[in-house]
């Protein structure tokens, strides 16, 4: 009996030990400390911006935490900012790269060449050619950590960046950098970027808002190889049996065509109006860095539809000024009526800043 008990014991001990080792391995690997580098925040930011000539292949995941009340036409944008997006990327240079959005049974690939992009959609068996429009909705390649990190850091000043603790990202040592926007109207509380210690390539980007601990966006490489991919990997020739199309420029859509010319103020909520290439004159863009407010007049039907959506959104503030909501760091506000016309205010600003801007806009244009 006693020997049976001992026999029972050692076998289970072997199994338990084996299981413990297997469970502990990933935890131990994840807990490996990352090496830090003695480089100033400003220098790190400069290295990140200069990393657009670093070739790589990678596998990345972007997780959006925003629930946007957008209509059917903008569903892809809403999905991008609220769901998980899995991407494969091959990068040879700023005008020679490929990003595939991978799903369980399909994929959508964007291939960039010197003249523009090919977008392959397996679901539609369709290849679409696009040039480089100055105004475009965000797409998956914009969320790649390398692209997003450079874009966001390019708007920061040296005074707005500080060093943070290093981390292990994609199995590499990554040095930390935090961009804290100085503007009082900012709804983005911080952007954390971890850069590859060797190349300066942004490996992970986390966008945070002040009102929640859940990141508005977290995009990171899970695998990265800095060997240059072949040209054959990034190039694209449409299959002979695929349908072909041409990307529609945003300025060709209703957004740019039906807008009446209005005189927008030079400043709103303390944010200065700035020039933005490709943006129609009726649309005002205000602010600097990642604190940006866009103001656009809306046609009647679009305004009515959006007003209903915004009013039905939990947490919506409805008052004499209009209706406003926040989705993470993104604020949306609709003001005006059928008689006076309507304006949409959207941007990475606080609800208070939106209200202030709406009041000033109303005073200037008479819309209420």
């Amino acid at each position, binding site marked *: 009996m006693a020997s049976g008990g001992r026999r029972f014991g050692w076998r289970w001990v072997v*199994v338990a030990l*084996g299981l413990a080792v297997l469970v502990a391995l990933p935890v131990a690997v994840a807990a490996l400390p990352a090496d830090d580098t003695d480089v100033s925040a400003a220098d790190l930011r400069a290295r990140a911006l200069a990393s657009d000539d670093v070739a790589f292949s990678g596998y990345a995941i972007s997780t959006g935490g925003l629930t946007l009340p957008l209509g059917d036409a903008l569903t892809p944008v809403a999905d991008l900012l609220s769901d998980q997006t899995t991407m494969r990327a091959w990068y040879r240079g700023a005008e020679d790269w490929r990003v595939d959005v991978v799903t369980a049974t399909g994929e959508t690939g964007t291939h960039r060449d010197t003249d523009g992009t090919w977008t392959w959609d397996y679901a539609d068996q369709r290849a679409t050619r696009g040039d480089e429009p100055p105004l475009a909705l965000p797409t998956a390649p914009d969320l790649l950590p390398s692209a997003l990190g450079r874009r966001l850091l390019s708007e920061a000043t040296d005074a707005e960046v500080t060093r943070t603790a290093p981390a292990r990202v994609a199995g590499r040592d990554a040095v930390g950098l935090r961009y804290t926007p100085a503007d009082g109207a900012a709804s983005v509380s911080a952007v954390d970027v971890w850069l590859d210690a060797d190349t300066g390539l942004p490996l992970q980007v986390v966008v945070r808002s002040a009102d929640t601990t859940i990141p508005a966006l977290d995009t990171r490489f899970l695998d990265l190889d800095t060997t240059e991919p072949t040209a054959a990997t990034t190039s694209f020739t449409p299959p002979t049996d695929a349908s072909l199309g041409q990307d529609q420029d945003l300025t060709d859509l209703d957004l740019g065509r039906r807008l009446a010319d209005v005189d927008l103020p030079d400043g709103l909520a303390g944010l200065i109006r700035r020039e933005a290439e490709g943006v129609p004159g009726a649309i005002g863009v205000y602010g600097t860095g990642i604190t940006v407010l866009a103001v656009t007049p809306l046609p009647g039907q679009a305004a009515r539809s959006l007003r209903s959506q915004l009013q039905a959104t939990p947490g919506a503030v409805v008052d004499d000024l209009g209706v406003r909501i926040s989705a993470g760091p993104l604020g949306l506000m609709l003001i005006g009526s059928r008689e006076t016309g309507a304006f949409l205010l959207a941007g990475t600003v606080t609800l208070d800043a939106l209200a202030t801007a709406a009041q000033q806009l109303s005073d200037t244009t008479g819309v209420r």
Partner: protein
Amino acid sequence: MIGVELRKLFRRPRTWVTIALLNALPVLVAVLLVLTDLAPRPGEGPAFLSAVLTNGTLFPLAALAIVLPLFLPIAVAVVAGDSIAGEAQGGTLRYLLARPAGRTRLLVAKLVAVIAFVLVTVVIVAAVGYVVGTTLFDVQPLATSTGLSGTVLTPEQVAGRTLLAIGYVTISMLGVAAFALFFSTLTDSPQLATLGALAVLIGSSLLFTLDAASAIAPYLPTRYWLSFVDFFRDPVLWRDVTRGIGLQAVYVVVLLGAAWANFTTKDVTS
């Protein structure tokens, strides 16, 4: 002992009935597609089903995708769950153990038999799928297929990647087999062992859909099952395929170890 177990398994009529039933669903789907000409859009429904109307040589993959989520694991769980518990329930286990080979070898022989069943089943599903696909759907001798990435795959590439997919699907089922085999050593009821394995799979599939469970998702036994689709991307996406193989290996090692620890010390009375 392995030969004995293999002969026993493949001489049973119910083994072949199970395989026949597994093939019934893809065949039914193929007939319905031919009759209605209504394939799902690419990216919707079972993988590759949308493409078979124009290229029947892809139907083996569609057939695997049809049976993979439910029917194939049920069949594997039934066979593996029966392996030890079925002998105990039938009163034959103690006679098997009277042979000098020992319990560990019997366990290994049972596992090998289950693996052989999985391989034979997957190959037959693919083969029947090929016959059905090339019979019912259009096939051109020099037909090329468009992979998920929009690149052209030659017939040789499709054939090679299909073989890889068959191998991967077989490996993906090993975790199910290991769960059922372990449960089969815990009980004298094969039904209970099968249900236990299926409960694990249903739980795994459910957890995989929850964002709240994302931290444990990479360790769920069903996590990488559909990654055989990655063979048809260009370049092949090996990341999830290698993780899927590694995960199944871990489940097999741990559960076979647990089955061994339990079975070799168990009082066998039936």
